């Protein structure tokens, strides 16, 4: 049996697949190594370790590789999903004791699709309770993000609504892709907010995100929000970066906290991209998102609120948030939805003459001072910059990737593309990560 060197645990999925093809180790050895690491570290991270299934799956992949049956860049590479996604015949608790005994007889669509691509599901990661439904602001911590950051899995998937994965993934300097709304089926996922939920991909590189999206994207009649579109990761068909027009709001890059991120702008400029100054639309993004999410979450869990079961949630504020959402006037929900339509139109007009928008993952003032204030992003957008918050509501694809290291600095930058323009996002992000090592783990001091 080949020993698995420690650097493997922080390698990207593509690198691991290449090593499998080179026969540095087998898929079974790789799965076993990750499972042992999972058992010895981060015991609090796991909802369920799928030891037998993953070993069997890995052995199947090894047999395929012996016969030269190549399925793609994820074949034989372990991965994890949040417990907010169903795995057939295993408990799917949605992170809550209320659903501890819930068992589905089907896999979430993304699990099935990754299985078909030869990926090896090794564990379910503890989810935020009810996927975060009822929370009026996202948690800064997320077990799925921590599992990737700590080298316990090369990548993970979970339910993302309103920055619930993007915010913690940015803090951990990971690469996260939020695909266009409707591109990836949410069948088998906890319903946090039907019109906002997307499957988020947490990985170590944009290249990995591209391959993962290629595997999981596609229409699905079982998801009412599915657009029926597919995605092929093919950077060779994307226009060269030198022809890109990239919009940015100068105030987003002012201040000490955003200083390192100006290096990303410089890098793109040196590649020949044209930087265009833009002004983000001015709308109450957070109010619209919070209203829509509160109403939809409370409607989804109305039975639990009525029965009093939500009092079993560990966070009282989350239960309170669900109750508050149920009392929301219908007019407020409709107004938020109408404002959302305006935001969608404004974003489409803003991005129409551009290839990409670029913005820090957080507003400058959020890092500069806890009180906030000033800057183009205004006090209304506390979690994400105006551009990122608007893209969230407009359903546009967002990719966040780490910028240069810096103390008290914003760690990640967001790229936003037109709907279904994921290859454009990945083209720019892949260029940045091929030129700089900002996304690679920093060696200990």
């Amino acid at each position, binding site marked *: 049996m080949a020993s698995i060197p420690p650097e493997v645990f922080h390698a990207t999925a593509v690198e691991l697949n290449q090593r499998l093809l080179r026969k540095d180790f087998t898929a079974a050895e790789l799965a076993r190594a990750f499972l042992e690491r999972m058992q010895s570290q981060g015991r609090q991270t796991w909802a369920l370790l799928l030891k037998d299934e993953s070993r069997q799956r890995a052995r199947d992949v090894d047999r395929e590789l012996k016969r030269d049956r190549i399925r793609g860049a994820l074949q034989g590479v372990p991965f994890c999903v949040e417990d907010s996604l169903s795995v057939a015949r295993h408990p799917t608790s949605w992170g809550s004791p209320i659903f501890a005994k819930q068992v589905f007889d089907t896999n979430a669509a993304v699990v099935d699709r990754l299985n078909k691509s030869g990926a090896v599901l090794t564990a379910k990661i503890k989810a935020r309770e009810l996927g975060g439904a009822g929370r009026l602001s996202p948690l800064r911590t997320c077990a799925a993000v921590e599992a990737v950051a700590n080298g316990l899995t090369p990548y993970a998937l979970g339910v993302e609504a309103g920055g619930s994965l993007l915010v913690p993934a940015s803090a951990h300097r990971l690469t996260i892709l939020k695909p*266009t709304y409707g591109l990836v089926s949410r069948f088998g996922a906890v319903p946090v907010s039907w019109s906002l939920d997307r499957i988020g991909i947490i990985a170590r590189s944009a290249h990995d995100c591209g391959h993962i999206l290629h595997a999981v994207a596609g229409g699905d009649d079982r998801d009412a929000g599915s657009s029926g579109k597919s995605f092929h990761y093919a950077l060779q068909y994307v226009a060269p970066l030198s022809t890109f027009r990239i919009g940015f709001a100068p105030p987003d890059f002012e201040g000490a906290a955003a200083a390192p991120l100006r290096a990303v702008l410089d890098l793109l400029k040196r590649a020949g991209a044209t930087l265009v100054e833009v002004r983000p639309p001015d709308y109450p993004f957070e109010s619209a998102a*919070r209203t829509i999410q509160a109403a939809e979450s409370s409607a989804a869990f109305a*039975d639990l609120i009525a029965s*009093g079961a939500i009092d079993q949630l560990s966070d009282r504020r989350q239960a309170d948030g669900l109750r508050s*959402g149920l*009392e929301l006037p219908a007019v407020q929900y409709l107004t938020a939805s109408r404002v959302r339509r*305006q935001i969608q139109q404004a974003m489409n007009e803003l991005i129409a003459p551009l290839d990409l928008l670029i913005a820090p993952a957080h507003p400058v003032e959020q890092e500069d001072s806890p009180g906030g204030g000033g800057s183009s992003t205004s006090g209304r957008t506390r979690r994400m910059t105006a551009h990122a918050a608007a893209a969230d509501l407009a359903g546009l694809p967002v990719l966040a990737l780490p910028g240069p290291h810096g103390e008290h600095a914003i760690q990640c930058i967001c790229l936003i593309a037109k709907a279904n323009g994921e290859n454009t996002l990945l083209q720019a992000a892949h260029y940045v990560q091929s030129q700089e090592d900002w996304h690679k783990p920093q060696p200990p001091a």
Partner: protein
Amino acid sequence: MRKDSRISRRSLALILGLPALPASGTAQQPGPVDQRQILRQDAIELAKVKLPRECAPAFRFQP
């Protein structure tokens, strides 16, 4: 004094046709004031947006 118009958990359960807890003094917990205030403030912020009358909600949302 204005009567609290909040719907009780028991009434809500009855409206939704769901099993309800027995009526008692403890069935309705005190309200989550701060969460409600946040959402009320959101309503004020949303009301400030000038919306054309023909602007429809983003139902059947597709980007």
